């Protein structure tokens, strides 16, 4: 799964494909200084990849909020009763 990413580090000039694989690492600031510089150099010349990075940042910002708005109501008291029953049954 990671063979591809390992080979990226040896390259001098990154391709769009490399940047697509590294995009999350880049926006999470998990890339080394050298790799970060290579990505930035590619982004300077490539509007397509700049758009990908911009859209990925927006996705990362809004998706957690959209998911939280939709989380179902949990009947915690019912679950707690089930936990207590299960605990009591396992002790008998």
């Amino acid at each position: 799964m990671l063979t591809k990413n390992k080979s990226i580090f040896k390259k001098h000039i990154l391709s769009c494909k490399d940047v697509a694989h590294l995009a999350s690492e880049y926006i999470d600031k998990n890339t080394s200084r050298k790799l970060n510089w290579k990505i930035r150099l590619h982004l300077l010349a490539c509007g397509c990849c700049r758009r990908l990075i911009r859209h990925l940042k927006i996705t990362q910002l809004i998706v957690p909020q959209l998911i939280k708005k939709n989380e179902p109501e949990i009947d915690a008291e019912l679950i707690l009763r089930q936990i207590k029953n299960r605990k009591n049954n396992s002790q008998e």
Partner: protein
Amino acid sequence: MANANHTDFSDEQKLIAALRAGDDRAFCEIIKRFQHTMLIIARAIAGDTFADDVVQDAWVAIYKNIAAFEQRSSLKTWIMTIVGNEAKARLRRESRKISLDELDGEQPGSYLDNANFAADGHRFAPIPSWRSESPEELLEAQQLQRCINKTLNILPPAQKAAFMLRDIEQQSFEDICEILQVSSANIRVLVHRARLTLLQVIDRFQETGAC
């Protein structure tokens, strides 16, 4: 049951103290906070069939052991590790082996698909432009909310678990590795794939107004 009607459970220390004291309200609070994510972890490790059972076993273990919780990690990490361990134990008992690849699945047509790139790695197809790049405007779009949640539910279990733990629960990569028993590098790949899939949902929404 301890009387804690006015306890502020947003303070983790007060929440832990109430849990140790056997306060049912505090326990209901952690059920509300973590049940959803626990189910996602259980599904990612043990599969759909055993997930509900695994989470119940985990809650019983938490209920029994909360008094002995030593706070070497945060309460959330402790709980997520327990459900991860319960799921792995169940998997061993059922003698089933599920590989990461099986859980992750293939995703033709994604941003990482080789078909999008020339042999030298240059991109063939342009990245679609969006009508709106305003986060505020996108957050108001109810149809987009439905599309995102629908897609989240059909993500491969390992991807969904890694994504939820990282981007929703804000867990560190180290903790996620411990919970899911997957290497840090592979967790990063899973999170990245999930983000790209969700990005494509926004692409489609921008283009068609639908999922």
